[in-house]
């Protein structure tokens, strides 16, 4: 693993348990993650594995039931009002649904400038408009003037998502948490938005906690960064992107990678597939003993798998949580 600057944002053993009528749901069960300056950390995994929950804790939108979230080494829970507001602004969040994340009754200008005005980052309306124009240009909404006075419903999904990014950028964030920010967009638009985000990362040095279930997107966007694969609230494989995607080790990661449909008919037909023992994900309220993945795992072997929960340990140039693979 590349050693780099100290992390801006880190999760230390965070847990999140939701109480529901059916029982407690341990949505996140002990996750450690670190986002380093200017780097991308990509979180992938099946639906319901706790990606969003982790991201929300990282953004301070939810408090972990156990563990802590550190911003520049300070525990967010222990912050005072001022620190907290600095943290709030430094860590911005971009939602998945561009149709829900913009207030339908506010114009683009009003949406993007709200934070600027509130925090007195601009002096007057004139300056605010200029600042917003710059931000819009930064996210490739040009000519920016055309967009200033538009309402969300007058824009396409891609454009809306760009406005959401501009709004986040207005706070001069150090970290942007993007939760499936591209998954609702058409393929054709997805790439250009990813490119825009990439530009921010490269030019402004913004760090990303990037969440997706699309391995292809993860690979493209986080090629220089790291990928953490989550399963049922825990990280099962964590390492540099090229290694994890091109040479997955954990059986779950392998299944994920092999399950991807390639836009290439010949490859699709020849590709080797990992066959899971069961297609259905277990219920979070009723987790299997031992390794969470063992009921579906193709590598399942009698022994440790169904009794002992595998710890996340360094192995094969990355962190892995699998008795079988780490034991090789």
């Amino acid at each position, binding site marked *: 693993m590349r050693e780099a600057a100290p992390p801006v944002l880190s999760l230390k053993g965070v847990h999140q348990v939701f109480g529901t009528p059916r029982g*407690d749901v341990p949505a996140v069960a002990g996750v450690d993650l670190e986002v380093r300056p200017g780097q991308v950390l990509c979180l992938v995994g099946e639906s319901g594995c706790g990606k969003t929950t982790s991201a929300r804790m990282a953004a301070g939108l939810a408090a972990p039931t156990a563990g802590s979230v550190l911003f520049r080494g300070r525990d967010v829970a222990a912050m005072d009002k001022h620190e907290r507001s600095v943290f709030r602004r430094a860590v911005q969040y971009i939602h998945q649904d561009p149709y829900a994340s913009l207030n339908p009754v506010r114009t683009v200008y009003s949406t993007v400038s709200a934070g600027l005005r509130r925090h007195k980052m601009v002096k007057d309306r004139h300056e605010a408009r200029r600042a917003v124009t710059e931000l819009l240009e930064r996210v490739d909404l040009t000519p920016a003037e055309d967009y200033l006075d538009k309402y969300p419903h007058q824009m396409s999904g891609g454009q809306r998502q760009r406005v959401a990014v501009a709004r986040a950028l207005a706070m001069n964030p150090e970290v942007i948490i993007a939760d499936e920010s591209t998954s609702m967009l058409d393929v054709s638009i997805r790439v250009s938005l990813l490119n825009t985000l990439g530009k921010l990362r490269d030019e402004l040095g913004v760090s990303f906690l990037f969440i997706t279930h699309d391995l292809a997107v993860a690979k493209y966007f986080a090629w220089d960064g790291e990928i953490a694969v989550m399963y049922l609230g825990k990280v099962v494989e964590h390492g540099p992107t090229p290694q994890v995607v091109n040479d997955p080790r954990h059986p779950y990661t392998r299944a994920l990678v092999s399950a991807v449909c390639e836009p290439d008919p010949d490859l699709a037909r020849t590709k080797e597939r990992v066959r899971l023992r069961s297609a259905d994900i277990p219920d979070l309220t009723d987790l299997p003993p031992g390794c969470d993945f063992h009921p579906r795992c193709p590598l399942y072997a009698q022994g440790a798998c169904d009794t002992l929960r595998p710890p996340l340990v360094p192995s094969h140039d990355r962190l892995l949580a699998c008795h079988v693979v780490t034991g090789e």
Partner: protein
Amino acid sequence: MATEIAASPPPGAGDATSARTDAPAPPLRRIWNHYAVVKVRKALVVVFVVANVTFFLGRAMPGDPIDVMAGRLTQNGMTMEEARAVAMNSLAYDVDAPLHQQWWDFLVGLVTFDMGNTINRPGVSVMDAIGAYLPWTLFSIGVGTVIAVALGLALGMVMAYRRNQFLDHVLSVAASVLGAVPNYLIAMVLVVGGGMYLGWFNPIELRGTVSPGVQAGFNLEFIGDAFFHASLPILTYVLAIIGTWMLVMKASTTEVLSEDYVTVARARGLRDRRIAVAYVGRNAVLPLVAQIAISFGTLVGGAIFVEQVLVYKGVGGLLLDAVNYRDYPLLQGLLIIITSCVVAANLVADMLYSRLDPRIRD
């Protein structure tokens, strides 16, 4: 006010469960926290609070029963002292009992389901007085609600199926008009227009709840007679709320019609009637179940007007009397019983809803 129907969310809407529940509960605790039990508990609390509110509200009104009766007597020239003495002699109300004493008696009565005797009708117990009136109100409102809801649902569905066609336009206008006219005006129009000018019926014959000599009992004559006499109030209630039900049902059906499962059902080649009943109708009615109870509750309030206008013997007039004569026990009894009925209706609706909608069965 039937229009409030439109504004109320279906039960449970928007209440995301976020609170953490405690560790596995012991059986008693589980029953205590069971959905139905929680509802009943809440309902009891509401009734209890309402009971207390009515106790103090009543007594906060200016004047007490003795004052009021004495006043009435002095109208004919008795001196105030004389009148008060007469009033005290003939009313079962002890002016000297301190408030806390009265309250205590009231609470004891509440728990033992004994609301005491009315003040102004000495010797008549509150329960008897209410018992003589409430059934008629409940009967007319109940039948009215059932008819209005059933018809309204059916017509609303027809409107939704035929929306933007001629029939829908006609029915929509009719429904809006009906929904806009206060129930007492409807009653007046019925009596004056239908009875007096058009002569469709003789309002004199319809007066009262049953014809003399007809014995209460489960026989055709009595039931027929009761319906005959209640026909105007029932018609009024039906007209007063059916418009709202039509529109609400139209909206609800319109929404359901655009649900995927309806399209899928059509794709599956199901018969239209089956789709209309089991797929569209049932789902469209679901969110409205709770509103039936609300509409019932508002009707109980509106009954005061309607019964007054139509001279139908129900709790409306009794309530007015109780207020006017400061008949505290009667007032309390009435309010408690009326609220209990409304609360019970809500409860039934809740239960029914949870029976009908598997999604919230737990």
